[in-house]
Every structure is written in structure tokens, then in C-alpha cells.
């Protein structure tokens, strides 16, 4: 279960092949409510194409009837046809406007939904997903790859589809005016199609490689810059340069590959377009000489050839854009195809749980034969069973790497056990919805995380009860729970500014905020995972006092190295080498710590 592979860079078989059109379909499926708009846009584009197509006919017939017709050259006829043209062009003006608004609007909405879908998916996925992927790579996927798709939608999509119609229309008119000459003119485009068909997979592959190396490079930069102080203190500026240089060179090579691949269409398409013109010129003139064609329509033909091949040529440039967008979409759809393995089970498993012959009333929390293994095969917990009762304080002690944090993570269901069951209030923890579960269980993580904002925003983060409280009301609440004094550690109290990535506040201060945040949520079970490790002992005494003042029914689970933080525990569990053992007293726990052979 928890050995689900979430690594995006390990391609599974069924994800390997995504061809262009199904991928596009999937993309458009994101917007079911926008289909009407899309159809309207398509209709307008067809009107636009027809209007564009009619103009050369008028030009051609004007030349035939009024300019080349030596017997009755009629300038007023030209003017009349110019009037028709003006009408058509004016209608076209409107068509172009609505085409842009509708199609562009569709693109923008699609992008909006796509971003939402990705973000939603990211929120659904479990912690394991984030620990198996580099944050830099994920960020690159979500930001950079969405942006590539964005560029396609905002700049190319409309032109792309509109071009398709113009090409189709011009093709039809070429055939209608003179099917022989039309067929001959269109022949080079078949070669173009064949060429594109063969070359596109290669182009896409090159783009995928380039995007991947971009992701890797941004991951590299993220890591090196984040760890810059170590780089400095250990005199390894060259390390940064060297690691970066490798990523940079790799990115350079793959980008050149992708660049050349993307540029392959333009010259080839241009050449084929010229061939089309050549055919019209030679074959057209031949047809005129044998009397099957007129000079006026030859000029119309040239206009249609331009109408046919120019958009094709532009599409060549867009096509590369399109391939890039598809490659990006591939990377993003890999995220979208991930499924959380932490599903909420239906509540009917209640009966099965009760039938274990346990006469005691259900404990607040119970582990039954729980084992846990990380996806990389590392065993962390073996077959552990224990109970935690309401209102008591439990301490988890043991050497580093013994499995304390893993135990806490299982209680908070950041992972599911690989074997065994965890019961919360007598019910399988998996039957609780995340909302129910997180309301009951508070967990102060070892590595505190703060959001950019203020102290107030951070301590009220995700807090439904107090979210609309004014500063005064909040102060009252804080005072009642004894948290008020902790705020003095911040220069500007509640209003103190916080920058998430910044070093502006100390680790101890971050831990204080995480502590206040968790306590204010008033959970039934509060886990502190070395939550006060970097806080001085005097302040820590205050925290203990606050914990003591929590409602009588609150269960506390404390993981700590400093023994004074756990001396008031009702029960102590010794966690070592994957086994959770009950220690009778603090003395016994200390003995175990001293004698227990560290297996970690």
C-alpha cells in the first residue's frame, strides 16, 4: 500500500505512450461546459474561412471579365466588384473579432481549468508523493510546463485552428476552380504531411528530453541555493559551480537538440510551398495555352496557393510549439494520473473490527499488529500493538532513527501501515474522512513550516473556529490558553511579518508558531514530534504549562530527546529497531535508553 511508486521520473509502462490526439482530447475534456462556446467559435471560423476564400474568386473574375476582356473593358465593373469585396472584408472584420474573443477565451478558460486540476491533484496526493519527488522538479513541472501550455493556448491555438480552416477552404477552392491544377498544386502538401508524420515523434522526444533537463537544472539550483551556507562554510563554491555546470551543459545539449528539432519544419514546409507555386506557374500556364484555364483565375490560384501554403508554413512554426505543449502536457498528466493510496474506506468495516474479542472499551487510539515499510524497502516498524487512552500523556522515547516519527506519522495517517490496523476511537482510521481525522488529531511536525504572511495568519492557518477573529478577540483566546506570553518572542506580535523561505526568524520561533497553531485547533489527540527541540528550556516550561491546561480529555503524544519534557508522561513507550515497547516508568525508560542496543 504505502509502497506505491510516486516517482514521476520513473515511467511506468502504461504511461509511456501518449500520442498527440488522445492527449489533446483529454485536455479538452477538462472543460465540458465550454463545449458550446467552442462550437460557436468553430462556426465563426468556418464563416471566416469562407469569406476569406470568396475574395480571390471575385478578384479572379474581375480580371477575367473586366480587365483581360479586351472587347469590353469596363471600369465600372471593377468598381462594382470592389464594392462586393468591401462588403466581404467588413463582414470578415466582425468574424475575426468574434473568432479571437471566443477561441482565445476558450484557451484562457482551458488554461484556468488545467491549473486548477493540477493544483487540486497536488492537494489530493499524500505526503509520500512529495517525499519521492524533488521539490524543484515538481515546481518546474507545475510552473514551467504549465507556462509552455499557456504559451500555446494564448498565442498559437487560435491561429492553429483558424489556419486549419483556411487551409481546408483554400484546398477546396483550388479543386473546385480547376481540379487538375488543384490536385497538382496540393501534391506537395501530401509530402509535407508525410514528413510531419515521420518527424513529429522525434521532435516530441527531443522536447521531452529538454524539458526534463530543465526540470533537473531547476532542481539543482533550488538545492544548491537553499544549502548555500553549507557550500560557503565548507569552502565548496566550486561544488556549486561544478554541479550547476553539469546541469547547465546537459540542458544546453538537450535544448539545442530540441531547438533544431523544432526548427526542422520551417525550411521544409517553405520548400514544399514553393513547389506548390512552381506547379501553379508551369502547369497553370500550360493549361491556359491549351485553353482549359484563364489568366484571371491563374491569379486567383496564386492567391489561393498563398492562402493554402502560408498558414501551413505558419503552422510549421506552431507545430513545434504544439509538440512542446504536448510534451509539457505529458509531464503534467503524469501528475494528474497519480492517485492517492490513502482512500477513505466506507464505515461498514466497524463490525469486523469489533469482532476481535477485545472486551475493553475502545481506546482513543490503538495499533494492532502494525508494520511499516518505506517504498525503498526499508523496514521501520515490525508488528506493533499498543493502546492510547483519552486524556493521558504518552511519551515516545528512543534513539534516533528508531521509528518514533514514523509511528507519529502513522497515527496522523500520513501513511498507511503496510500490515496491521490502526483504530481511532474503535474505528479503523481509514474510515474517517480527512476532515474528521485532522480535527481529532493534531500533529506538530519536526520541521516547522510557515507560510509567507504574518504571525497571525500563520497561527490561524486552517483554523475554522477562529479564522474571522479580530486581533482583540484573538488576544483573549490566546490569553485564556496561556499562549499570549509566547507572542512576546515576536517583535511586532501578531503582525510580525514572515517570509516562508527567509531566515528572518529563528528555528525556535518557527517552532513556537507551529505550537500555537496546533494548540489553537484544540485536537483530541496532539502529537508533538520534537516540536520544542530548539526552544529554550524556560520557554519550554511555559509550553508544558499550556499543555497541562488543555482540556482534560486531550491526549498528548510527545516525542522528545530532552527527558524533562517527558517526565510528566503517564506512560512511556520505548521505540527502537522497529519495536514499540512499554516502559513502566521514567527510570525504566532511561535504563532502556542506556542499555538498549541501538539498531538504527
Amino acid at each position: 500500500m504505502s509502497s506505491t511508486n510516486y516517482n514521476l521520473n520513473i515511467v511506468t509502462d502504461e504511461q509511456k505512450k501518449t500520442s498527440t490526439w488522445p492527449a489533446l482530447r483529454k485536455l479538452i475534456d477538462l472543460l465540458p461546459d465550454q463545449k458550446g462556446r467552442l462550437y460557436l467559435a468553430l462556426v465563426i471560423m468556418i464563416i471566416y474561412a469562407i469569406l476569406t476564400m470568396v475574395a480571390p474568386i471575385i478578384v479572379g473574375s474581375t480580371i477575367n471579365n473586366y480587365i483581360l476582356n479586351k472587347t469590353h473593358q469596363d471600369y465600372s465593373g471593377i468598381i462594382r466588384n470592389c464594392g462586393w469585396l468591401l462588403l466581404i472584408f467588413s463582414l470578415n472584420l466582425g468574424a475575426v473579432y468574434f473568432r479571437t474573443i471566443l477561441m482565445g477565451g476558450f484557451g484562457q478558460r482551458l488554461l484556468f481549468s488545467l491549473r486548477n486540476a493540477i493544483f487540486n491533484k497536488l492537494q489530493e496526493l499524500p505526503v509520500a508523493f512529495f517525499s519521492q519527488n524533488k521539490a524543484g522538479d515538481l515546481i518546474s513541472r507545475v510552473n514551467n510546463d504549465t507556462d509552455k501550455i499557456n504559451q500555446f493556448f494564448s498565442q498559437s491555438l487560435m491561429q492553429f485552428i483558424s489556419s486549419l480552416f483556411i487551409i481546408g477552404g483554400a484546398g477546396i477552392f483550388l479543386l473546385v476552380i480547376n481540379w487538375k491544377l488543384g490536385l497538382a498544386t496540393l501534391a506537395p502538401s501530401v509530402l509535407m504531411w508525410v514528413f510531419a508524420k515521420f518527424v513529429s515523434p522525434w521532435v516530441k522526444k527531443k522536447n521531452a528530453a529538454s524539458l526534463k533537463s530543465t526540470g533537473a537544472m531547476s532542481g539543482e539550483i533550488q538545492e544548491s541555493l537553499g544549502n548555500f551556507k553549507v557550500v560557503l562554510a565548507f569552502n565548496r563554491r566550486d561544488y556549486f559551480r561544478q554541479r550547476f555546470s553539469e546541469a547547465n551543459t546537459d540542458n544546453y545539449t538537450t535544448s539545442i537538440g530540441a531547438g533544431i528539432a523544432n526548427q526542422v519544419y520551417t525550411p521544409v514546409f517553405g520548400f514544399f510551398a514553393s513547389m506548390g507555386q512552381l506547379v501553379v506557374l508551369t502547369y497553370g500556364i500550360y493549361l491556359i495555352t491549351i485553353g482549359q484555364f484563364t489568366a484571371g483565375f491563374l491569379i486567383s490560384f496564386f492567391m489561393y496557393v498563398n492562402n493554402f501554403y502560408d498558414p501551413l508554413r505558419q503552422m510549421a512554426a506552431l507545430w513545434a510549439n504544439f509538440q512542446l505543449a504536448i510534451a509539457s502536457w505529458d509531464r503534467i498528466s503524469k501528475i494528474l494520473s497519480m492517485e492517492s493510496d490513502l482512500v477513505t474506506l466506507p464505515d461498514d468495516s466497524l463490525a469486523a473490527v469489533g469482532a476481535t474479542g477485545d472486551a475493553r472499551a475502545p481506546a482513543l487510539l490503538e495499533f494492532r499488529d502494525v508494520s511499516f515499510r518505506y517504498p525503498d524497502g526499508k523496514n521501520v516498524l515490525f508488528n506493533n500493538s499498543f493502546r492510547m487512552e483519552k486524556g493521558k500523556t504518552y511519551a515516545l522515547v528512543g534513539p534516533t532513527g528508531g521509528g518514533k516519527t514514523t509511528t507519529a506519522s502513522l497515527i496522523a495517517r500520513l501513511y498507511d501501515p503496510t500490515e496491521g490496523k490502526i483504530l481511532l476511537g474503535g474505528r479503523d482510521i481509514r474510515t474517517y474522512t480527512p476532515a474528521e481525522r485532522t480535527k481529532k488529531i493534531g500533529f506538530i511536525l519536526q520541521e516547522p513550516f510557515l507560510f509567507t504572511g504574518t504571525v497571525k495568519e500563520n497561527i490561524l492557518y486552517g483554523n475554522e473556529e477562529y479564522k474571522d477573529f479580530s486581533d482583540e478577540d484573538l488576544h483573549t483566546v490566546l490569553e485564556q490558553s496561556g499562549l499570549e506570553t509566547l507572542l512576546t518572542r515576536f517583535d511586532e506580535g501578531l503582525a510580525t511579518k514572515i517570509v516562508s523561505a527567509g531566515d528572518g526568524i529563528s528555528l525556535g520561533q518557527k517552532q513556537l508558531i507551529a505550537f500555537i497553531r496546533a494548540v489553537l485547533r484544540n485536537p483530541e489527540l496532539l502529537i508533538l514530534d520534537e516540536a520544542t527541540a530548539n526552544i529554550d528550556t524556560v520557554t519550554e516550561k511555559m509550553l508544558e504549562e499550556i499543555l497541562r491546561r488543555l482540556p482534560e480529555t486531550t491526549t498528548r503524544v510527545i516525542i522528545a530527546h530532552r527527558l524533562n519534557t517527558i517526565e510528566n508522561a503517564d506512560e512511556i513507550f520505548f521505540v527502537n529497531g522497529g519495536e514499540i515497547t512499554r516502559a513502566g516508568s521514567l527510570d525504566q525508560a532511561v535504563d532502556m535508553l542506556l542499555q538498549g542496543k541501538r539498531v538504527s
Partner: protein
Amino acid sequence: MSQKNQPTKQAGGAAAPPENAAGSGAVSAGPGGKRGNKPKGPSLFGLLKPYRGLVLLLIALSFVSNGINLWIPKIIAEGIDSFTGAKLDTHYIIWKFLAAAIGVFVFTWGTTFLQTYASERVARDLRTRLADRISRQNYTFLQKTNPSQLLTNLTSDVDSIKMFVSQAVVSIFSSIFVIIGASTLLLFIQWQLALAVIAIIPIIGITFYIVLKKVRALFKTSREIIDWLNKVINESILGAALIRVIHSQNLEYVKFLEANAKALGLGQRILQLFASLIPVIIFTANMATLTILALGGHFVITGHMSLGNFSAFNNYLTLLIFPILVIGFMSNVIAQASASYMRISGVLNAPDPVETGTITKDLRGKIELKDVTLSYGEKRVLSDISFTVAPGSKTAIIGPTAAGKTQLLYLLTALNHPDSGSIELDGHPLDNYKKEDFHRQVGFVFQDSIMFNMSIRENIAFSDTVTDESLARAIETAELKDFIDALPDGLNTVVSERGMSLSGGQKQRIMLARALAIQPRILLLDDFTARVDSQTEQKILANVRQNYPGITLLSVTQKIASIEDYEQIILLMESEMIASGTHSHLMATCPEYVQIYQSQRSTSHYEQHELQS
């Protein structure tokens, strides 16, 4: 006509050395000028100086291919006319046309190939220069500029410059070439009609200019919104565990939705502008077709123009419109690239920290601080700190959260510099030591776990001075031997980013081993004991004493029990040094210290118990 003047001005600049004149001309985007702040910025074209040969070759190639392109309608016209003139030399025209087509193909391919090569090379070199520059900076610089901005510099900013090189440079020059070329050819064919057709250039140009000016402002806002969007995404990724513990996915989604909706609204506003722009352009171009038919038809009837040339006019019209649009779009690319280059230049031109140090001799380990003061913005972090640490002694720094303990250690590692006061090592100012030799002798164990995504061996032997022997000793001292031996891949086990697969204590010990592996004379520990259990801690400290004799130890800690035997204990509170002395001295004289002691007292007999074991 103003818009028409602008390209010619740029072309004039291009004929001169392309670096300066053309650069500023293009950047300030033509007559009337946008804001007058651009000329101060570094020239984008100056960036291309080292690649002058490459760029000139690129422009030359594109001129050739565009030149041939301009020739093609003439060939067609010739064909039509020779037919109407009834002396058709089909073969000659076919060969001419074929030669032209192949020429265009070869030169276009050459241009695109060279474009890719040049732009990627510029991007790579720029990134290397940036990284090189960043790598030479000190910690203060990094804090000031903040890593996420540098990440943007190295990725998206470089990308927009890449776009400039790959698209704008060639496009602008070749577009101007085509516009001038096509206009000239038209003028030669039939000047009256030509003037009527050329009139569309300023109309399209001016409309474009007006709309793009508005769009550019929106683009700027849109960039800010994208930054905001990315920040929300980034924090939701980095804070993933917390979000799941609190079940605040919905909250994050609301934050995200707000930014995303803004992005949508802005995208639609930009779209509105384009929706009004594109029809105008197409309509204007169509009016040119109309003019050609009406006026050109008249000229053909009156015999002032041949039918072939009439057709050539239509063909040149298609050739003419595209470059006008390209110049418009490219002015956007250039604007974006110069904004990016401006940001990058800020980093590139940041002065290198000067290496003042000359002392290379080995440290004995005496540390002396005199009236050291440090502020962080308006906030005092350290005020008038003075103390001395004897070589080979053990000193502890103790004090409440946010007292300035970590900052003090940063000063001692030269990561930060004091605003005033002096720090001396063995009687010489810290700055007089050559950085390299200084860092080689000072080991620093950071409070926050910093792991690199590489093997444990590389994480520990991070400094390049580490030998196998010193590595082994460091591992043994940090009590990591059993742990590493138990791993299937041993020292070669790769640590994942942010060290997720390691426990807090394991990370802490790896960081200690990293610091010890350089065999330092001075060891700085920042709250090392926080995540390591007391038993291990005692063992490790005993190991340090045994394996690294004579080492000077300065330890920030919370636990009094383990520092009672230290030669000196310094008590920091709210940036000030409250007291210093031995444990017994402080117990007798310092009430704050006694308070801290009392807060730990109830369990101290256990800690004592451990000490003796």
C-alpha cells in the same frame, strides 16, 4: 508616418556597430518613447558583443534567404508576362524558380540552425556567468537577493533572453529588410500603386504600437500574478506535510483560486486588446488588396502595368504584412528580454566580495569578540558582545529563543559580518585570514538539517580536503558507523532531497561528521543536542575530545546538564550578553541562569546518571 521612421532608424543603427545604437533604439520602442528609464539599463545588444561574428553571419544568412524570397514573385510575374507576351521559355523559368526555392531552403535551414545554436550558447554562457558570480558571493548577498529570485534569474530570465537571441535579432533585421526590399520593388514596378499599398504600413504599425503599449503594461502585471501563483504552488509543495496534517487543502485551493482567477481575468483583458487589434490588421491588409484590384486594374486596362506585375503586387502584399506584425511582436520580446537582462545585470554587476585575507597559518583556536553589534533591518540581533575563548577550551552559549545565538555563530564563520566591533582569531582580525584557509579549519554544524541529494559519503566528505582516514574518523566520532554499516549500500546510499528518508538525529549526526571530516581547529555546534538523545550526545562529545584533541569547542545549546564542566558559559538574552563564566560562577551570580537551571532541574539527576555511564 512615425512608425515607418522607427524601423529605418533601427536599420540605420544596425549598419553601424550593432551593439549600442541599435540596442537603445529598439529598447525604447520608437518615437514618443515609453518611459525614459531604459537608456540607463545595460544594453541587450551589448550582451551579444562576444558573439558578434555569429550574429552577423546569422543576419547575413537571413538577408540572403529573404532576398531570394523577394525575388520569387518577380519570377512568377516574369512567367505570367512571358506567357501573355506569347514567348514562353518555360524551362528557363522553371530552373530559375527551382534554384530560388532550393536557395531559400538551404539558407533558411542554415539560419534556423544557427539561431538555435547562437541562442542556446548565449543562454548557457549567461547561466555560467551568473552561477559563477553567485558562487563567489557571500551569504549576506544571498539573503538579500533571496534564492527564489536567483532561481528566476537563472531560469525564466535567461529564457526570455534566449528568446530574444533566437527570434528577435534575426526577425527584426530580416523584417526591416523585407519591408524595405518589397517596398522598393513595388515602387520600381509602379510607383503610384506602390505608394497606395505602402500606406498600409504606417496604419498597421501605429495600431500595433498603440495596442502593444497597453498590452505591455498588462504583461508586467501578468508576470507579477504568475509569480504570486507560483509562490502559492511552491508553498503548497514545500508545506505538503503540514497541509495534510491540518487538512487545509481547501484553504490552499482558495488561495490558489484567487490568484488563478486573477490570471484568467488578466488573460482575458489581453485577449480583448488583441481581439481589437487583429481584425484591424486583417482589414487594412484586405483594403490593400482592394486598392490593388481597383487601381491596379485601372493601370492594366490603361496599359500602364502588365498583368504579371499586377499579380506580383498581390504576392508582395502577402510578403509585406507579415514582417510588420513580426516587428510588433518582437518589440514585446525585446521589452521582456531587456527587463530580464536588467534583473540579471543586477546580479552580474554585484561587486565581488574582496578577498582581504592573507594569513594562511594554522589556527590555535583563540577567539576574541569586542563590542560586536549586528542588526537585521531595524532589529538589533546582537548588541555589544565581548568575550574571549581560550584555545582548546569549551564554551557554551545559552539563552532563550531568538536571543541571537545562531547569528553569533554566523559571525564566527564569516557568513555574516558585524555592523561594528571586531572579531579576532589568535589576535588577528577574522577578515585578515584567507577565506579558504579559514574555512578549512572551522567546522560548523548548522541547526537546520542541510542534506544534498547525493551519497552519504559525498555528504560527509563535502569539503574537498577530506581524506579517507579523516572521513572514517569523523564517521566513528559521530557514532554513525553502525548506522551506515547497516545500510545495504553503506556509504554510497543516496540521501534524498531534504533528507526525507533519514531521521532528524541521523541528519544531525551526518552534519556533525561533515564538520569533523575537515579536521577543524574550531568546532561550532548550533543546537546540536536538540535532535540527538542524551546518551548518544555524551558519547559523541567524549569521542570528539578523544579523537580531536586540542579542538576549540563553541556550542549553542539548551541543556545545562551537559555543559556544567565547560570552561565558559555565555548567557544571551534579547541580543545582549547577560552574563558569562563557569557554571558555578553563574549559579552564584546570575538569577536568569539559575532560572534556566531550575527549569531543567527536575530531570537533571537522570542526565547526571547518563553522564557517569
